[in-house]
């Protein structure tokens, strides 16, 4: 299963249920600087796939390219059978691909309830929104207690919970999570990852970007390791977690 990028990749035989997301040779540039040098990855229905790597590896850029927040310079992104590489973000969200941005990005001067409402901005099925909202609040009971509070006054962990809950209100088939553990206390990180698993078990496919490789590899089914804009390793999350290279580089083992 596991290969390094130097070894020739076998031609990927697409398993019969086509992957929910297939990214092929994706390249992204910021001006003259190339952030991604043609990466390819797939996410199958029902999976948690994680993208790990250090600072500046291109993890956030990958997610932003998928959700349309940055325009790819080259490559193809096929989501649920449709090419979305040239679509604007609001069209992509409509297709059921929801992005929970890095640094939480809650709307600080709006209440928790209003933040959640914005998560369902493109939907008009009021009854279903109400159900999804209840589901999301069941996942994060703390948010229920703080519905009328301004989002900016929440703790970091609560803001992260709100950001995830808000992304869920778009009723995503694929949820992109960018660094949900960023700047949080270890205990909160545990909670967040437990909930990520719950969300997945309820049927949402997840693409998770993390610096906390330890937690990410524990919760994910498969993983890709990104280094300066290239995928250097990929495979089963557990196998990667036990590989020497990953342990040395990302798990702090010596």
């Amino acid at each position, binding site marked *: 299963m596991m290969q390094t990028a130097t070894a020739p990749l076998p031609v990927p035989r697409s398993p019969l249920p086509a992957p929910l997301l297939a990214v092929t040779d994706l390249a992204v540039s910021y001006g003259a600087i190339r952030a991604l040098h043609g990466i390819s990855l797939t996410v199958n229905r029902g999976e948690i796939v994680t993208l790990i790597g250090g600072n500046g590896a291109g993890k956030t850029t990958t997610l932003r390219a998928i959700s349309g927040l940055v325009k790819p310079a080259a490559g193809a992104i096929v989501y649920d059978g449709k090419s979305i590489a040239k679509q604007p973000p609001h069209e992509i969200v409509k297709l059921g691909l929801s992005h929970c941005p890095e640094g939480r*990005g809650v*709307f600080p001067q709006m209440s928790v309830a*209003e933040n959640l*409402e914005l*998560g369902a901005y493109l939907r008009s099925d*009021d009854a279903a929104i*109400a159900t999804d909202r209840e589901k999301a609040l069941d996942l994060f009971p703390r948010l229920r207690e703080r519905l*009328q509070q301004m989002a900016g006054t929440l703790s970091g962990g609560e803001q992260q919970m709100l*950001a995830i809950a808000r992304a869920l209100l778009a009723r995503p088939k694929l949820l992109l999570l960018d660094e949900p553990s960023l700047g949080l206390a270890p205990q909160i990180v545990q909670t967040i990852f437990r909930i990520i698993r719950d969300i997945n078990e309820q049927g949402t496919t997840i693409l998770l970007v993390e610096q906390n490789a330890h937690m990410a590899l524990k919760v994910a089914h498969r993983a890709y390791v990104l280094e300066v804009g290239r995928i250097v390793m990929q495979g089963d999350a557990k196998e990667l977690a036990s590989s020497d290279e990953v342990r040395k580089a990302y798990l702090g083992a010596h």
Partner: protein
Amino acid sequence: MKTLAQHTKDVPASRAFRPAVVFLPWVACVAVAFAVQLVAPALFDDYWVNVLRRVGVFVIAAVSLNIVNGITGQFSMGHAGFMAIGSYIGASTTYTGSLLLHGSVGDDSFAVQGTMLMLGGLVAGACAAAGAGYLVGLPSLRLRGDYLAIVTLGFGEIIRVLLELTSKQVDTADGARANPFAAFFSFNGPTGFFGTPAYASNFWIWLFVAITCVVAYRLKRSSSGRAFLSIREDEIAARAMGIDLTKYKVRAFVLAAAFGGVAGALFSHTGVNPSPTDAGFQRSFDIIIMVVLGGLGSISGSVLAAILLVLLPEMLRGLQEYRLVLYAVLLIVMMLVRPQGLFGVKEVWDLWGAKRKARGGTP
């Protein structure tokens, strides 16, 4: 503020057509307008009744600017440009229209028709300003913060220079009939456009004040308003929620410009002659101060700040020249003491329940 919890509980009700909710505010608008028109002369002398018209114009200007600068968080410094467009187009509609239809201007026996021309002028001024708002809004989408401020500042200056380049005002009916199009756009260069009859009574001005406030307040709480506010709060997150930045930023610019145009058109019908300097930086700055003082995003805050900042210099006539010094000091003090403005995003009436809400929010 109505929350999602309340929304979802009464989903059928909130979507249902409730005549009281739909029509009552508009009836209230007319009532306010009548009240000001009838009560003001009883309380004040002519001079202050006239000041009241100026107050109304600036309330409209401040509330409309708040849609872009406050609610959407895009710092525009060219609002006077939009106002001036409305001013000139509105004035010229009435003036040139009178020449063409009646052969003379300000014939009071045609008072009703004059008022009709003014209303036509308001619509024309609003449309022209909205068009300009669209043109400025589109390229401005790529700009943020300071850069947007500079572009919009430049826009106001461009309008000012263009107005200075216009040819001499046509003052005879024959002249106007010879070439109505040229006559309409002859704005009299740097001297300013004069001769527009003062059809804008307190009734009309305060009618539009009330309409502007109702529209802005409803807009703020509408689905578009949520989108505007989210853009102001965090653009990237707003885009990730599926909010089309282009659409909503342009929409904010167009709406603000249209109401700014109405303010301008009303102003030119109060006996004030519009001149090119009206499009300049100083006027824009006057309005920005009102919005910042009232609170970026607070409609009622803008109303109060506009009233205050028009009345204050009137009361302190002697200090008129020092107005800008006063503004600067006021701004610095505001930034130090209350950077969110008097009311922040909140409305005046939100403050009563605020304390209780804050306590209830943190159990």
